């Protein structure tokens, strides 16, 4: 019985099917809003679906020099990680009693998978440009992860060390969202930028760099393998704002009003993400590292100090 339930969680409801669907919608919103900002019409609603469908039907080329199994496996690794993270987040949001203590930490590990899989896939293709992209991705991971962790530890300090997502949500239901305090607001701002880097979106898209690396880590991927990477990114595009909503904005509350409010919070964060994406130019690698290690970590420590002070 438990197996069936876990399978359902993983494959259908908060897991694969659900998150893929919401991810496609989020990806459409992303492209549409970015197009409207540029005063363009933008793609139709079903565009992400058609993109994936096309990629599934195209030929997938495996370069002769690539290390075959890793090249084929790494997109799956990323997708699996994102799906597990989506199931855990969904279970914590919809069935608070079913999550376990410490799921926040496990979730953080699984959220790392998509970035790692990009890096592995790029290196496995043995393309020099992909290797350059993978090196950049690695540096990026090393710079945004500490900043993200600093932002999340502010939440932990605020909630007196709650390590389970559902307890964080219920704490916020009693005491009000973390983001409403000074330290929480600063931490949310920092987390927004870290998420931007985690999704490798524009100010931090240096691992893919359309213009100089010709999509870098993904350069040798085509067909359904590329499709899996795109799908993973769509799922992450839904996952990261939802994660921040749960951590900083009190999650989706009970009752229809709460759910409506939760959706509003989600869209607000998604819109913030899209705005940052379409209004900023790309940073160089050294600039991105400096931004996160100096500005990001500095801001995180200030927020942490404020949180310990009780602000």
């Amino acid at each position, binding site marked *: 019985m438990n197996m069936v339930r876990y399978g359902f969680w993983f494959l259908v409801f908060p897991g694969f099917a659900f998150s893929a669907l919401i991810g496609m919608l989020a990806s459409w919103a992303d492209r549409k809003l970015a197009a409207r900002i540029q005063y*363009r019409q933008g793609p139709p609603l*079903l565009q992400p679906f*058609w*993109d994936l*469908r*096309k990629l599934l039907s195209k030929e997938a080329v495996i370069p002769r020099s690539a290390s075959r199994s890793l090249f084929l496996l790494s997109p799956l690794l990323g997708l699996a990680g994102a799906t597990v993270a989506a199931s855990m987040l969904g279970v914590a949001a919809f069935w608070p009693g079913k999550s376990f203590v410490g799921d926040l930490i496990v979730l953080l590990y699984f959220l790392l998978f998509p970035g790692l899989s990009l890096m592995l896939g790029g290196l496995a293709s043995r393309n020099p440009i992909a290797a350059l992209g993978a090196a950049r991705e690695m540096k990026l991971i090393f710079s945004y992860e500490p900043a993200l962790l600093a932002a999340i530890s502010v939440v932990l300090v605020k909630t007196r060390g709650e390590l389970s997502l559902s307890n964080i949500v219920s704490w916020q239901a009693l005491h009000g969202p973390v983001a409403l305090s000074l330290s929480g607001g600063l931490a949310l701002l920092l987390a927004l930028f870290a998420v931007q880097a985690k999704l490798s979106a524009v100010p931090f898209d240096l691992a893919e760099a359309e213009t100089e690396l*010709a*999509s870098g880590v993904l350069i040798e991927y085509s067909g359904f393998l590329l499709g899996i990477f795109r799908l993973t990114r769509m799922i992450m595009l839904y996952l990261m704002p939802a994660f921040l909503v749960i951590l900083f904005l009190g999650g989706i509350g009970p009752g229809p009003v709460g759910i409506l409010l939760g959706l509003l919070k989600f869209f607000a964060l998604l819109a913030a993400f899209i705005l940052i994406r379409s209004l900023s130019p790309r940073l160089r690698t050294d600039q991105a590292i400096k931004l996160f290690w100096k500005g990001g970590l500095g801001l995180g420590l200030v927020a942490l100090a404020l949180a310990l002070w009780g602000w």
Partner: protein
Amino acid sequence: MKSAAKALKKSAWVFPFFSGSCNNCNIEILDCLTPRFDLERFGVLLVGNARHADAILVAGVLNKKGVPRLKRIYQQVPKPCLVIAVGACALSQGIFSGSYAISELPVDRVVPVDIYIPGCPPKPEAIMAGLLKALENSGTKVPRTVRKK
């Protein structure tokens, strides 16, 4: 299989190949992405990587160095792949005809061309119309194989 053919029409990612053009055709191709024309309405994206492409837009006359590169890029694109020749140069060598630097081969002797868009340079409307027509008529048979390069 039917939805696969439809998906190709709905989401064509285009790789621009600019050989020895005078740069005007390139500008007109980029014009198609501007707010006035906005090719993304039809799901068309410009990509910088042949492996992600569904169609190659060839602009400009093929010069001697361009021929092997165009061939190679055509081989790198996962099939099915459309080729669209843009501008008088790509069609019939245009104003560069007779130059010492260009190859004798026109574009359609190097790679199979699906549609020709004449003009010097063609208007963005013409490029869009041609691209959409090529997509409209693209073959319904979509091979589904994993190929070793």
